[in-house]
């Protein structure tokens, strides 16, 4: 791009002077500037901002870009496109997250265990062989109408 090399992100800052220069480059205070740890993952000197989504930013402040809730020149989070208002939301929940997770896992595991038990030990209503009327459908099955059909009783008294 047409911006000079010293305005673009660079390698991890090693000396305090490099840190101060990087903080100035990113429009941050030197005390606020904290780069990602130098693990060789490819972050360079990009600042590690708090993992807060755009939902948590003040909706009533006059942002330069209201839909992104972002000001011109303000350093953007590395995962900025994940934290937009259509996507991941990190705003505080009314119920603590570990409580929600516990309730969800209890419900899910209960349902799965019950479904599993139902598959291993199925239970149906008792059934018997089908009973046909009219002496086991004697005439419909081609029995002679002149002959006496064999009496078929399906009950016992």
């Amino acid at each position, binding site marked *: *791009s047409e*911006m000079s090399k010293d*305005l*673009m*992100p*660079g*390698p*991890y800052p090693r000396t305090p002077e490099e840190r101060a220069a990087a903080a100035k*480059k*990113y*429009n*941050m*205070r030197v*005390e*606020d500037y904290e780069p990602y740890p130098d*693990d*060789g*993952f*490819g*972050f*360079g000197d*990009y600042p590690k901002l708090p*993992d*807060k989504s755009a939902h*948590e930013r003040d909706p009533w402040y006059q942002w*330069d870009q209201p839909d992104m809730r972002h*000001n*011109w*020149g*303000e*350093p*953007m989070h*590395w995962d*900025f496109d994940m934290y937009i208002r259509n996507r991941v939301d*990190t*705003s*505080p*929940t009314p119920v*603590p*997250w*570990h409580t929600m997770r516990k309730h969800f896992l209890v419900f899910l595991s209960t349902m799965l265990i019950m479904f599993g038990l139902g598959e291993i030990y199925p239970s149906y209503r008792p059934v018997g062989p089908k009973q046909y009327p009219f002496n086991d459908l004697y005439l419909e099955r081609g029995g002679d109408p002149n002959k006496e059909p064999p009496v078929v009783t399906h009950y016992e008294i």
Partner: protein
Amino acid sequence: MAAGPPRTAAEAYRPNRFVSLPAELDPDTYDASPEKRRAEAERLAIRARLKRQYQLQLNSPNPPAIIEDPALLRWAYARTQNVYPTFRPTPKTSFLGALFAIGPILFWAAAFKAERDRKERLIQEGKYKRPFSLF
């Protein structure tokens, strides 16, 4: 063992990577020591300076076609072109690279080979039931 002092509401809430602590439970939002105020004032000064730059460009009589945001350009550059120069092979990156790049290939190759061998063995033994057979 004794229960210890009762947990604060902030500790009971346990914020993590997915949810943040509400401002009402955060003690940082209540104390306004002089250092914090000075820090806030400095941040406000930076913000005001940037806003002034932006507004000057926006409301100038001859505004440029696009007002470039250097923060956006830096963000895009950092995520695309600055990754390879700053990458360094370490034990962690090598392990993760092997796990996510080579692992799936080996896994799926083994899975498909095993499946095909099993099918071939069944066909040779004559036990394979054709799924879409017309007969």
